[in-house]
């Protein structure tokens, strides 16, 4: 008889969940909160209405339905990923947890196991909310397709959120920096993205079915990429994720930052909408947090690839991203290729709208990642005496960015993603890891950040001026 082979990490997580007091407490309190929310929203809806109005009217269900969906959504999209993030960070700080990678567990299995356990916990939350959703539906005012699709979309969002949060929780940054980044993501960036992408889907695509298809595709892609990065983060050996960069690596990375940072400003025509910026912001944060030393170390990548190809000859290309720790490296290669393709277009004065959008997306994706990531990391590793200077420098850059964002909001064209550099950089300063050599790297990438900020400021100014005229 073939034994049921459940992912060991998932099984362990579920066993721990069953024993965790926080979860047990949550399972008891959560229905009470839902009941309270239902009662409050119903009493609001009932206020000042006669029985005739209630029977003949459009129904009372829409407000309670929305309230219950919001509470459930918060638990699934913020609560569950937050719990798993805290748990993963706590585990990672203990050397004992690394023993898992001296077994036959693969990095992908590790991430998938945690995702599976999180998904099951989300299902529990959803199941607990279903009776209340049913009550709201029976009160009329909500059509059947909305009642059925809302939990499904919430679940999809929650899985994406958990994937992204796990990816960050497994990164090699200092735990305080990871904590800050996760909080920003959970409380600001992810809810904002979900809301704005929802608005985008409905307003741009018109039909709700089309919107759901686009939305689901985006969710699947985001979750898959995040899962690949997460696996890439935890791929052993760990020492290579935290080791200092060598001088030659510093020079190469500095060259990368200059080429991508400045190249993106001169090569690609600015044909980019606000939604693209939002995507870029998310992508920049993700890429920043995921880029480890392994991504730039050809020796590690080639060795890992050789081993993976040998072990899994048929699926070696697919496994490259997850098994070798090279996912961020592949991303950087992709950006480089885009730069290489875009430069001739710029010099030949060719104007290709489609290419411009695609290329700009990759530039923003990678350029912002390189700049933010390297500045945050470099500041963290620079000698203590220089940190104050760097902090002032970064405050100045952020002030410029804030102005650019303000101008963008006024109808200009700004680099909104650059503003996100600030919390990352300040968090980086907190870390007490000093590497004097990183001064050069920080200076060069910081300069790139300054150039990009000035450029976006100038771009915003021109656009506003043109609009005024």
């Amino acid at each position, binding site marked *: 008889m073939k*034994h049921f*082979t459940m992912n*060991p990490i998932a*099984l*362990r997580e579920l*066993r*721990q969940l069953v*024993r*965790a007091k926080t979860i047990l407490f949550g399972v008891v309190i959560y229905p009470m909160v839902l009941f309270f929310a239902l009662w409050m929203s119903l009493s609001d809806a009932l206020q000042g209405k006669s029985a005739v109005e209630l029977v003949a009217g459009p129904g009372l269900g829409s407000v309670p339905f929305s309230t219950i969906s919001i509470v459930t959504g918060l638990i699934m999209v913020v609560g569950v990923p937050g719990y798993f993030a805290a748990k993963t960070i706590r*585990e990672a700080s*203990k*050397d*004992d*947890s*690394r*023993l*898992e*990678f*001296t*077994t*036959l*567990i693969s990095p992908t299995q590790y991430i998938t196991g945690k995702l599976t356990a999180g998904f099951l916990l989300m299902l529990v939350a959803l199941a607990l909310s279903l009776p209340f959703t049913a009550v709201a539906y029976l009160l009329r005012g909500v059509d059947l397709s909305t009642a059925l699709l809302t939990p499904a979309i919430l679940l999809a969002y929650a899985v994406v959120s958990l994937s992204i949060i796990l990816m960050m929780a497994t990164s090699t940054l200092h735990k305080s920096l990871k904590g800050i980044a996760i909080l920003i993501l959970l409380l600001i960036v992810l809810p904002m993205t979900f809301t704005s992408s929802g608005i985008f889907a409905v307003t741009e695509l018109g039909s709700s079915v089309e919107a759901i298809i686009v939305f689901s595709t985006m969710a699947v892609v985001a979750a898959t990429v995040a899962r690949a990065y997460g696996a890439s983060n935890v791929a*052993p*050996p*760990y*020492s*290579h994720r935290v*080791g*200092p960069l060598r001088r030659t690596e510093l020079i190469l990375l500095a060259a990368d930052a200059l080429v991508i940072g400045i190249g993106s400003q001169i090569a690609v025509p600015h044909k980019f909408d606000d939604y693209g910026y939002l995507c870029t912001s998310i992508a920049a944060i993700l890429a920043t947090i995921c880029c480890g030393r392994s991504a730039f170390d050809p020796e590690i990548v080639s*060795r890992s690839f*050789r*081993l993976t190809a040998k*072990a899994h000859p048929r699926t070696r290309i697919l496994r490259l991203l997850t098994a070798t720790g090279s996912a961020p490296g592949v991303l950087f290669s992709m950006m480089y290729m885009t730069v290489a393709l875009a430069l001739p277009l710029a010099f030949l004065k060719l104007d290709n709208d489609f290419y411009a959008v695609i290329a700009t997306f990759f530039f923003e994706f990678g350029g912002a990642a390189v700049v933010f990531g390297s500045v945050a990391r470099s500041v963290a590793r620079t000698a203590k005496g220089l940190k104050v200077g760097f902090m002032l420098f970064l405050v100045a850059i952020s002030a410029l960015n804030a102005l650019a964002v303000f101008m963008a909001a006024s109808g200009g064209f700004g680099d909104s993603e650059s503003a996100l550099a600030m919390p990352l950089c300040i968090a980086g300063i907190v870390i007490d890891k000093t590497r004097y050599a990183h001064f050069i790297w920080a200076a060069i990438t910081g300069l790139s950040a300054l150039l990009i900020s000035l450029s976006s400021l100038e771009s915003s100014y021109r656009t506003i001026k043109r609009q005024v005229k």
Partner: protein
Amino acid sequence: MKIEIKNIVKSFQRGVNAVDDLSFSFSSGEVVGFVGPNGAGKTTTMRILATMDIPDSGDILLDGHSVLDEPEFAHRSIGFMPDDLPSLGDTTVDEYLDFFGRAYGLRGKALRDAVEGVEEFTSLNTFRDKTLSALSKGMKQRVSLARALVHDPAVLVMDEPANGLDPRARIELRELVKALAENGKAILISSHILSELEEMCTTSVIIERGARVDVEKVAKSLDVWVKIRISGIEPDDARPKLLEIPGVKEVQSGGRFCRARIESGDGHIAALASALVERRLLAVHFEPETGNLEDIFMQVTKGSLA
């Protein structure tokens, strides 16, 4: 299984090598004591062997399989017991071992047998339903050992396993290590308690500043103590007589015996024996003591860090 550590070099920062061209080998049934001052590179070497680190250069071969090129083979072959204790406090002993058994690909009856087997071997049967947070340090060490053994590895790597254990637990650990070696496992064990290592190890490797120290050469240059009992003369009275003998550097008396320190080498020992006869000192007990690990360690190490 033969384990060959070949020219391992590992540096962490600014050209200082934590492990510097380290080479040694050992085989199944051997218990190798891995000794060195703090920061000598013992843990780094063990982590490389357990695939938790990779060296800057050099390699480790397990029956000819490189741990760098074939980490999965290494994972199957090696059980690593780090100096950290198990940290999943809300997990029971049985669940913890069950998890690692599954992580090594065991399922069904094979998994149950393996978990129960290591629980019995490490006397954890009565604690199987207790959570790890409820266990004493000694019991956690046992859990850690059980975890390292759950997939029945051919090689066991133990980093400071006796750290913080009480005397009884240390004796029990020693017995467990001996039993494992008798079962044919190759064991690499580091400890600061040298007298204990000496009792359970078949050989030892001393490292300092990441490099191996030539123990044989040092051992030869060490003095030898000879345990002597002279018939009809109390040790305190025999002491001055022994000190008169040429070549005797120091004499200690205590209990029924004297201990005389002379230069190492068979010639010096034979010369002492014949000098006793010449002086009509009737030795009813004459036992040269080999230099112990602690003496050698103190002689060869300076306590400096890599």
